[in-house]
């Protein structure tokens, strides 16, 4: 049964239009006549407009006290200006200042590049499904201090000095500096890789200071902030309505805590490693991507020829992460045989390129890992042999002979950098079967 009577529906619809600023004279008149002729309609109008007030207030990340304070701070300035305006000198001063501002603004516009905020990092990885705001995002794009970004969907990774930050859409955040991000809404995972002490993620409810670790912060204005530490240690602090610290929790490996604005409280909760899954699935131990490489946020059930087409990119997907070899393993890498003794900790990544037949130019790209590459498996036979041990059990792989790469100067090229951390690709197309795959093996230091 429809829970709304037609008259109630009409009042709610008209009220929504009024709130949204989309009402015309005739419809406003209709709303007014309903309100005046029927007390029930008046009650519904008041309820519905209050509904908008509540959602509108909830949509702002600040507390009512903070909002009031902001209004008053603006007001304080306004009052001072008004007082001064009464003096005749003020007019003269305003004119002078205005002229100066105009001149300076004009000059700054002409020299805008010089005045842009300082660069603080780069976009280091993008998933294939990424959707962002108006500014297009490309791998390697510089991100600047003070920049606000919205990620509607997918995973975007930022590389700041000694920190990788994975942003899981939908999320909105601001990069305050190389050492601080303000998270308005959504989920971030930060991996501190070196000497960036006290890297901080702030939300309206909490401040999370890293002490050498990998941790996740998610904030939703309607609920609050959650912090999970996968490895290392963070100091997480509950903030009151004016942003002052009120309670501090030290969190270490596999611990999590919730911070709530409404109740002004913080407490430990169960740690769920699955919260990190979307980032592991997408980026794993990849430090950065270049060119036309992209990650995927999904586990793909089949990678057989034609099942996952890569239109203008090369896909790189984490498979087994930090996997301890149960027995000795010898693989034929593109540079020769590689022997890995039992007990070695490895991670594997599959690079998949399967364009439709009508592409004229094959993309190039490179992937850089935190740990060294020990082998790049490129032949169909070796790929097939390693699927069971290093591939994903839920994924079906191609078994036909065209799967591997044809390494030759005029065909596919795969190169490993001197520091053994970057693999670059240029895949040629060999119609009618364009599929090319390689598997990269990374040796990870065993956990202590």
């Amino acid at each position, binding site marked *: 049964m429809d829970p709304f009577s037609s008259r109630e529906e009409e009042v709610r619809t008209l009220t929504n239009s009024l*709130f*949204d600023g989309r009402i015309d004279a005739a419809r406003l008149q209709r709303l007014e006549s309903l309100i005046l002729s029927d007390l029930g309609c008046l009650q519904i109008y008041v309820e519905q407009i209050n509904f908008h007030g509540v959602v509108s207030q*909830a949509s702002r990340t600040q507390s*009512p006290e903070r909002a*009031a304070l902001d209004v*008053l701070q603006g007001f304080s300035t306004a009052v001072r200006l008004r007082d001064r305006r009464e003096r005749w000198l003020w007019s003269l001063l305003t004119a002078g200042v205005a002229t100066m501002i105009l001149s300076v603004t004009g000059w700054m516009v002409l020299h805008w590049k010089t005045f842009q905020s300082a660069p603080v990092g780069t976009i280091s990885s993008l998933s294939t499904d990424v959707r962002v705001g108006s500014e297009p995002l490309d791998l390697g794009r510089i991100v600047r201090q003070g920049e606000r970004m919205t990620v509607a969907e997918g995973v975007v990774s930022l590389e700041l000095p000694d920190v990788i930050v994975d942003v899981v859409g939908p999320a909105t955040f601001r990069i305050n500096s190389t050492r601080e991000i303000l998270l308005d809404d959504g989920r971030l995972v930060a991996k501190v890789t070196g000497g960036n002490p006290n890297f901080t993620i702030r939300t309206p409810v909490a401040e999370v200071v890293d002490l050498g670790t990998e941790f996740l912060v998610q904030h939703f204005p*309607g609920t609050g902030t959650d912090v999970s530490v996968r490895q290392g240690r963070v100091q997480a602090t509950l903030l009151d309505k004016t942003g002052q610290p009120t309670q501090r929790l030290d969190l270490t490996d596999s611990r999590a805590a919730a911070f709530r604005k409404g109740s002004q409280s913080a407490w430990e909760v169960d740690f769920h490693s699955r919260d990190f899954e979307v980032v592991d699935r997408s980026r794993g131990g990849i430090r950065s991507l270049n060119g036309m490489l992209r990650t995927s946020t999904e586990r793909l059930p089949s990678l057989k020829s034609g099942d996952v087409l890569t239109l203008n990119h090369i896909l790189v997907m984490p498979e087994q992460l930090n996997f301890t070899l149960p027995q000795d393993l010898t693989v034929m890498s593109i540079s020769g045989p590689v022997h890995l003794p039992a007990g070695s900790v490895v991670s594997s990544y599959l690079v998949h390129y399967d364009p439709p037949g009508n592409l004229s130019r094959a993309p190039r790209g490179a992937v850089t890992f935190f740990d060294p590459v020990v082998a790049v498996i490129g032949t169909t036979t070796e790929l097939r042999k390693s699927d069971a041990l290093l591939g994903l059990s839920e994924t079906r792989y191609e078994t036909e002979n065209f799967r591997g790469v044809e390494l030759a100067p005029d065909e596919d090229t795969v190169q490993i950098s001197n520091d053994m951390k970057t693999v670059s690709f240029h895949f040629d197309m060999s119609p009618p079967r364009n599929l090319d795959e390689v598997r990269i093996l990374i040796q990870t230091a065993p956990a202590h």
Partner: protein
Amino acid sequence: MPNVFRHNELFQGDVPPSREAAFLRHLGAAYHDIYASALAIVGNGNDADDVIQEVCIVLWKRYEEFETGTNFRKWACSIAFNVAKAYTRKQRRRRGFGMGEQALARIAQVQSGASELLELQRDVLLDCMGKLPEADRSFLLACYRHASSLANYARDMQMSIGTVYSKVKRLRRRLVECVKRTLRSEE
């Protein structure tokens, strides 16, 4: 003597509570209701944001008239109604249409008389929002946050404005149903 609001004093913990601090405490505690009162009269979200600034200025200017120990919320809301009505009159003259005095008076009457019910509905609505799927909740809140430039936001999200409005409409309806259902079950 100009009535200057020295907000900096609020952040100095070692000074005795100032008049400004007392005012801010009152204002913070009643802010939701003051905003709701202004919004009920002007009806439009962007107009309400303009009005609330004017309301705060008037409240501070007339704070001397407020008698300590009486109900600040009630006093502030009545001022908010008056400021919002004046604003609406001005807008009516400018736009050539708008709600008449009689309708505004009745809205103010119901808004102030139903404060307990509205507060209950507010709590239930926040619970219902918490039950929405994360993506829907984020989307809805983002739309309200970008209400003054929803077309730009839609473009940023690579959606048509029509799609955004119809999705918002669906979510609003779902929330209203949830509030009604919850209130019925609590009766």
